[in-house]
């Protein structure tokens, strides 16, 4: 009976509506933040920070974006990576065309560009649903990829198609160290995750979920389909766009269309399926899982004295992913986040089985 709210009676509704009403959760989140902001940057080496934590955070942000659209508003999308690409290329173009632009403003504007494109490609969602909408967003993915590979203006007529991100600095500090890039990514992701959490617990989030669960009833209580769905596309694409800009500037250091291909869209979709559809926490769990799984498989194969060839390992990875996705789709559609919640509920009753 370690995890329970016994004795924590909420005298007011405002206490009950707090971000984390249960004390153990508050403590848990505080510990997590201390670890993320203080322990990790000091303990982690450049490899862990730059090749694991930064991509994990950025992919979490993209998964969060997709989760807003698919998990909360119920609109299936396969265009996630396309919207990320818009963010990345917008950030690049702002940086080279307006060199004086502050980095954070650049990221915000890139997110807005992605939001506009997202809204545009969200228009068909008013007429089509489910599978057909997924196909329409797939078309947007291909179109955006084509645009950035073929139209030279976006890549500033670079011949290779791969361009390096300009040197970065924020408030006069150079972001040359991995450590500083990690902290910046973490800060942006924390703020945006908080924003998402706030949106889904107020009326805009309820409108999204209402549209997802029963669109006729949503309209009958006065929710406007057009505005609600397009807002979901806009906000979701904003998150994906910022994630794309971070991916290019803070993780890869290069801007290339190949980083945002269809495989990336699927990867992010798998993250929310495994992590939990319609859950903020799930976006992070799913991203952690998919980023860490290959590493664990590698370690595992190391224990067998590297008996497997590299391509065998890739295949093991694919088989595991496929199996897990089928498992979650069938057995636990709410993903790891749900398992976590069930675990907490069990803990609340522990040591009594009922």
């Amino acid at each position: 009976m370690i995890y329970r709210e016994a004795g924590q009676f909420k005298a007011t509704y405002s206490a009950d509506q707090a971000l984390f009403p249960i004390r153990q959760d508050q403590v848990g989140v505080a510990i997590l933040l201390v670890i993320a902001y203080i322990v990790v940057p000091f303990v982690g080496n450049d490899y862990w920070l730059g090749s694991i934590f930064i991509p994990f955070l950025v992919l979490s942000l993209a998964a969060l974006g997709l989760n807003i659209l698919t998990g909360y508003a119920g609109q299936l999308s396969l265009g996630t990576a396309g919207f990320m690409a818009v963010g990345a290329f917008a950030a690049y173009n702002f940086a080279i065309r307006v060199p004086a632009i502050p980095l954070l403003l650049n990221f915000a504007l890139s997110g807005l560009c992605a939001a506009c494109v997202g809204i545009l490609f969200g228009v068909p969602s008013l007429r089509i649903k489910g599978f057909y909408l997924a196909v329409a967003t797939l078309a947007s993915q291909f179109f955006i990829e084509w645009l950035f590979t073929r139209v030279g203006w976006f890549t500033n007529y670079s011949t290779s198609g791969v361009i390096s991100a300009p040197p970065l600095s924020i408030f006069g500090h150079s972001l040359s160290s991995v450590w500083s890039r990690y902290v910046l990514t973490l800060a942006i992701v924390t703020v945006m995750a908080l924003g998402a959490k706030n949106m889904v617990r107020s009326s805009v989030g309820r409108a999204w979920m209402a549209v997802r669960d029963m669109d006729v009833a949503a309209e009958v209580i006065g929710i406007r389909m057009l505005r609600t769905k397009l807002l979901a596309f806009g906000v979701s694409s904003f998150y994906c766009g910022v994630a794309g800009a971070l991916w290019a500037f803070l993780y890869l250091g290069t801007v290339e269309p190949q980083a945002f291909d269809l495989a990336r869209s699927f990867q992010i979709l798998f993250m929310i399926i495994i992590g939990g559809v319609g859950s903020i926490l799930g976006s992070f769990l799913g991203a952690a899982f998919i980023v860490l799984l290959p590493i664990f498989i590698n370690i595992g194969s190391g224990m067998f004295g590297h008996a497997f060839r590299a391509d065998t390992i890739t295949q093991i990875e694919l088989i595991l992913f496929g199996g897990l996705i089928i498992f979650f789709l069938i057995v636990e559609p709410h993903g790891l986040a749900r398992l976590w919640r069930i675990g907490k509920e069990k803990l609340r009753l522990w040591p009594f089985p009922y």
Partner: protein
Amino acid sequence: MVKTRVIGEVILKLENVSLSFGGVQALSDVSLQVRERQILAIIGPNGAGKSSMLNVINGVYHPQQGKITFKGRTRTSMRPHDAAAMGIARTFQNIALFKGMTVLDNILAGRNLMMRTSFLEQALYLGRTKREELAHREKVEEIIDFLHIQAVRKTPVGRLPYGLQKRVELARAFAAEPELLLLDEPMAGMNLEEKEDMCRFILDVNEQFGTTIVLIEHDMSVVMDISDHVVVLDFGRKIGDGTPDEVRRDPRVIDAYLGPTQAAPYHEKELFHGM
């Protein structure tokens, strides 16, 4: 039953409404009037067009012919969210709750038209949003108390038993503080006790808040008990319109329910037993 409220002016008027789906004539040339603070019941056999009637009133279906006047504004048809904005709320025959959301969120969603802050303010969740959420939460808690669903407020509605879901759906409709409340078979599938509770709620809402109510119900004893006025539909046509007493004695209504060959006085007792 003593009713203290005063029936007012005509608030809703349907004139010569006809609605068809392909070859099926769901409503033909139906006219009716609903007055402020009235409880009007629509009855009729299965497939008579009762649900279609509610769907026409709040804009889910668009009739091919006829006019609808609500609060002095006439239009041939309107969108459901316009109807909601004008003060019409409803429940559905097959519960249409938001299954993945908690009871609290479902009822709060019913008040979405009263929430004014933008999504950006909500993302920050400062001052105005916080106050707004809190104010609506307090209102919703009143409704929760009123309908005795305190124990399940944090439960996702998909996990609730049928009777409770019906109650939550009423709560969501009622949360919008509507002027006109449309209830499609609110007591279907309930046991006697649940039905009595539901009747009580409907009468309380009507009495305390002066809400005009149009309800569809199959249980005649309930209809006769709580309604001020009854409209009878059969095969899309209106065949009866009057007070419960008038309708009960109307030979055309008795025919529709029992077939024309039956002897009315005897079966009238059978049909309207439990009164």
